[in-house]
């Protein structure tokens, strides 16, 4: 239960983690946010991430694995730099969310939970993202795009490809 001597994280993230564990009555409360921030930086929850977070919180690596496998946004394998998450839940389905998903599949040449060979994009069909009144909607990493058409979708993918996409972290 301590701050590690060496860290795999950037100084900013390490500092954030030092602070996060102090915010709660118990250190372990910081676990879920730490996993998500760690994933943002490393790209996925690697063994090294698990080891360091377990050490920082003072729980076993098994405890960390037990928690991380519960949450759908946490992954143990790398994804593309831009993870395109297409909602197909009811409100989006009624406004052609599946059409957007099909369009992305064709356009990117990959399927659900796959990554383009250049590592730039991955694609995921996801459950409701809370943008129902502006359907169909997607998220690229943490950024929302709504009231989509195939044309708007192309524009979004082009923007990310050209390095012009929004990048909320």
């Amino acid at each position: 239960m301590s701050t590690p001597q060496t860290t795999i994280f950037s100084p900013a993230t390490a500092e954030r983690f030092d602070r996060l564990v102090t915010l709660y009555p118990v250190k372990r409360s910081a676990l879920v946010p730490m996993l998500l921030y760690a994933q943002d930086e490393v790209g996925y929850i690697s063994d090294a991430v698990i080891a360091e977070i377990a050490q920082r919180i003072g729980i076993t690596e098994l405890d960390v694995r037990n928690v991380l496998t519960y949450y759908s946004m946490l992954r143990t394998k790398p994804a593309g730099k831009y993870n395109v998450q297409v909602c197909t839940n009811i409100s989006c389905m009624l406004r052609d969310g599946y059409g957007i998903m099909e369009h992305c599949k064709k356009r990117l040449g990959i399927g659900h939970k796959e990554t383009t060979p250049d590592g730039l994009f991955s694609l995921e069909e996801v459950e409701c993202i809370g943008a129902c009144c502006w359907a169909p909607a997607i998220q690229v990493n943490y950024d929302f795009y709504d009231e989509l058409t195939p044309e708007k979708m192309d524009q979004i993918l082009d923007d990310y490809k050209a390095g012009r996409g929004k990048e909320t972290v």
Partner: protein
Amino acid sequence: MPRLVSHPDEVKILSRRFGKGAADIDKYIELDGYKAVQTAIAKGADWVITEMKASGLRGRGGAGFPTGLKWSFVPKQVDRPKYVLVNGDESEPATCKDHVIFLHDPHAVIEGTMIAGLAIGSKLGFIYLRGEYRYLLKIMEKAVADAYAKGFLGKNIFGSGIDFDIVTQTGAGAYEVGEESALMESLEGKRGIPRIKPPFPAVVGLYGGPTVINNAETIASVPHIMLMGGEAYARVGSERNGGTRLFGISGHVNNPGVYELPMGYNLKKAIYEVGGGVRGGRKLKAVVPGGSSTPVMLPEEIDVGMDFDQLGKAGSMLGSAGIVVIDDQTCMVEFALRTIQFYQHESCGWCIPCREGTDWLKKTISRVHAGGGVDKDLDNIRYLAENMLGRTFCPLGDAAAMPTIAFIKKFRHEFEDHLNGKPCPYAHKEEPALV
């Protein structure tokens, strides 16, 4: 960016600062911000709870429990610290109301949390957003930081001698965490599985301390109740259903959006007037009135006031007030399948009736939709769903079973039309580009 909508029938209480830049603390203060908490401090905890009870405000997460009553259950004298936990893990399909609150009025959530803390004698509040809402977390984080910078949070708030702190965080993708006991588990750094009740959180909650857990919309309503008075707030709504609610109208309507309407507002009017009617001039086939877990209604059933009691009497629920409008070209079996797919995906697996029930419902409805169903499948679907009801720790099992039962009861003919090798007769008829 979520588009703001407006309609003359709206009564803007909770949404009155939307679109006015109130995420900025100075703008919020200019629009009567942080006055309510000062009033609450001046008048004291008992007054706050009395006003909350008088307001008739009922939990906006979907259960509809009276908020004032919930707060009054927290014991006054206890050794353990007490907590306020704001549930912004908005995940029920068709629900995006908290999304606009965090975006447009984050300080109302903070102020409501402070007032709740004052009412129960808590010094620490948590605001928990779903993991997908990172950009909204950043808005909340800035709002909290600004409130600290002004001295509104922290030690001795508004010279009261009372300390209050707020911690904001997100989850990482889990519908189940929207259930209050699972939410506490998640906040304690665990898998989000539900706890058995009793004890209720008001007695033994977060870290074993008494905890008030309220939906973000409930909490954001609190400052307005303090400002206008509980009775005035109650009068805006219908009997035993105080105030207004953010109704999210989505699906096949001309003007989808989040609208603030008085409790008890007519559902049919909400669709045809506020929502602008079914798009493309098509006919209405069905309505899901309060988020995906609420039983579907037929067009002839929707001339009803939208509050917890009236919709309950009409055989459905107000739930999270996400109204899904479904036109006559939709396959209801496909719609039922997409609904159960969600619950199967989100079942945490803790309770067997939910874990196995959602899985078998998904398999069976999927087979029926694909044309491989047999006659007895339809009774099996209903039997399975009915046997999930009330047999799980948390309401996710019910949330999956209730809509399924309604789909098979009210649209049995559509299920039958898929049986015995027939391809789906509803989906993808002539499908002109929808406007």
